[in-house]
């Protein structure tokens, strides 16, 4: 009886070890995720979110120009009628500031997968992540 008990303890420990290694392997081999930023339907920037190491901000102007902002420049210039500030984090992206009236894009929050894009309809900005396997994220499909 003691021998089977020890064998079972060994099996449980083996399962635990294997699953820890499996989990670490999964964390290390993340899937590719690229964030595409569209202004008025035109792709203006494509960011590989896995390569992002620190939090960066991008400002999107009315004419579709996009440039990186430094921390002290996180203000909306007065001359721009449609201005969005995008916050890019390692593995995630969100809308930080916007000149639109309803601020729905800000309330969308942070997205990490291709399941749901961030859209600012008044300013015609769409942020969409591609590359993640959407089947992993969908919980259920109603037919």
């Amino acid at each position, binding site marked *: 009886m003691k021998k089977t008990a020890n064998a079972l303890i060994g099996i*449980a420990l083996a399962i635990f070890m294997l699953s820890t290694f499996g989990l670490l392997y*999964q964390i290390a081999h993340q899937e590719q995720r690229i964030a595409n930023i569209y202004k008025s339907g035109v792709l203006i920037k494509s960011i590989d979110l896995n390569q992002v190491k620190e939090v960066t901000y991008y400002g999107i102007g009315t004419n579709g120009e996009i440039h990186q902002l430094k921390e002290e420049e996180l203000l909306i210039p007065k001359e721009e009628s449609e201005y969005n500030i995008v916050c890019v984090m390692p593995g995630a992206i969100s809308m930080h500031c916007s000149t639109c009236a309803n601020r729905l894009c800000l309330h969308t929050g942070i997205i990490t997968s291709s399941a749901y894009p961030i859209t600012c309809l008044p300013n015609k900005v769409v942020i969409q992540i591609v590359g993640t396997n959407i089947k992993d994220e969908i919980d259920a499909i109603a037919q």
Partner: protein
Amino acid sequence: MPIRKQTILALFATISLTIFIAESTLAPIIPFPGVKLGLANVVTLMILSLDGNILDVLLVFIVRIILAAISTGSTISLAYSLAGGFLAILVMCLIHKMLGRNYLILTAVFGAISHNLAQILVAWGLMSTPAVLSYLPVLMISAVVTGLFTGFVADFVSPYLKKTGMFDALAPYQIPKKDEEK
């Protein structure tokens, strides 16, 4: 079935149902579907440690599932725990018969492992995507951890339950030995 045994099993079924519902209202610490502290397993372990047989355990389990489906109203998630609980009970009774009362924690760990394994297999069969297998490492780790916790709880409580003598009716009837010493 003798009335005393019936009453004890009904008591266990009620306790199991209460624990199950209370546990389902707790907010999950780990945001993974299916990771839960299977505290209702403690009742199964109690019945096993008080010398119940597999039919008693299955009876309590089925009653608890039906009552939980009626009271919480969500039958789909209960279908998963039905499959999981069934395999868990089979495995636990087998291991308990092999190892005895002393290795209750090990029984609990293997019950939790087989429960989560059966849940993943049912999910795989229903969704037909091998993506659910990526949940396997997380679920196995949580199974071992929660199994240890449940096992410790059961191991701690069980001698006190046995000492009260209330649950002796669960054990199969033994012919009393004649006392030779006088």
